[in-house]
């Protein structure tokens, strides 16, 4: 390499760095400002619609890490009822196979994030915790009806100026 040309490439590179130094930031100031997450987001929690459930245990069988514990029994009319449905979110890997296995489409992934708790015991959710209420946020994963209702995901490629 000739000594004469030395430094030309570095100067070119510096020009690119300069250009990037004065452009708008692409990150967002997270807790204050939030982007819309994906409509099909697979958050680390389940939402369970009790009325549609037929207690078939397909979700528990589909789980690759056995994080769903399900105990069912028959009531006096010989109808299956759910005694226990525990979801250990500390074990859950959010793969979504339980949602796909559900024949009644009564199980949804949740769009909630920020699910940190103070003790490991609280990670184990009972059927009351995952019950579908007005405040729960079922995601559109495997559920086109939910998907159309949800707001569109913010994409980095659209180049929004987040902080302005």
């Amino acid at each position, binding site marked *: 390499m000739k000594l004469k040309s030395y430094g030309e490439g570095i100067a070119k590179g510096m020009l690119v760095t300069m250009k990037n130094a004065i452009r708008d930031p692409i990150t967002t100031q997270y807790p204050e400002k939030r982007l819309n997450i994906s409509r099909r987001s697979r958050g680390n929690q389940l939402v369970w619609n009790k009325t549609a459930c037929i207690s078939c245990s397909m979700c528990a069988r589909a789980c690759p890490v056995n994080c769903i514990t399900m105990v069912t029994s028959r009531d006096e009319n010989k109808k299956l009822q759910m005694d226990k449905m525990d979801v250990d979110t500390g074990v859950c890997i959010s793969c979504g196979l339980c949602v796909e296995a559900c024949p009644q489409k009564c199980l949804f992934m949740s769009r909630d994030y920020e699910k940190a708790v103070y003790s490991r015991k609280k990670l184990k959710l009972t059927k009351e915790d995952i019950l579908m209420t007005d405040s729960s946020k079922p995601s559109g994963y495997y559920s086109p009806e939910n998907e159309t209702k949800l707001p569109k*995901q913010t994409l980095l*490629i659209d180049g929004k100026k987040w902080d302005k």
Partner: protein
Amino acid sequence: MALKTETFILNAGPQHPSTHGVFRMRLTLDGEVIQDVEPVFGYLHRGIEKLAEGLTYPQDIVFTDRLDYLASMTNNQAYVVAVEKLAGIQAPERAEYLRVIMAELMRISSHLMAVGFLLNDLGAFLTPLLYMYREREKILDLFDMVCGQRLTYNYMRIGGVSQDIPEEFIPALKKYIDSLPGFINEYEQLLATNEIVLIRTKNVGILTKESAINYSAAGPVLRGSGVKWDIRKADPYSVYERFKFEVPVGSVGDIYDRYRVRIEEMHQSIAIIRQAMEQLPQGEIQAKIPKVLRPPKGEAYGHIEGPKGELGFYLVSDGSTNPYRLHVRPPSLINLTALKELLVGVKIADAMAIFGSIDICVGEVDR
């Protein structure tokens, strides 16, 4: 008076910023020159091959995500290709095209990481790497839109894909594909003519054609040494024979050639995605498969061209719902066997650059 000297053992890793995960090299040094290298791995061993024997075929897809966590989509694809070969299932056309689009996006993403980390290893601390992260983030946005997660996609299914793409996917993908060549050119401007990068990468860490074949290296490491071998051309799977693309090769086999091959492959992937978007047919995305899949007795080896090289899954079925044996042919581990030849005799300062140019992912090495 003669000085008494002795060799010096240096542990690089497992917690070393440049070892790309928990990988350890025991380097025997004579001054600054490496005399011997002993790779130590297994810190990330999770026993995925054994775990897979206790799970059904569809459940194993989840665990393939965790092999090479920078290229989960291609891991999914390699596994489902193997199972489909074993059970004799043909995925519908639309699903095959979607798989190709996802796999090529994944290849771009993985190569972005590879060249970004290479520059990080050379001492360009974080700046070029974070440019790469920025571009990769856009790909992850697209994956997030399709399957709901940024890293462990779990998108491909035996006989298809899990969900169809949403309607806003194709416009976003088009926008991204149009912007990407400009970014790669900007990156080239940043580094391809940079004298320091050239001095540190040219004629350093040369892997000859013969030894690359002898080590059965694959992917950019093999092609950087000048061997034109790509599974997409050599043994076409999916719908790859319908696309026009080149297989870029290097000439010398040094770090620079491997870097160039990766940059060129990104351009080729863009071309493939453009063609796939044009030809994308309408229709089903999932073939009809039995609810409980029991492939016939036998064995199958399915392989694809992953971002890091030939990724293969070898499956043995005993006719039950679970695989009798699952073996992974991880490109990272096989490419890593060439490390000793590359490192012995070079200066310690080049060790990390050479190691970075092989582009390993420890999740795949240890499994």
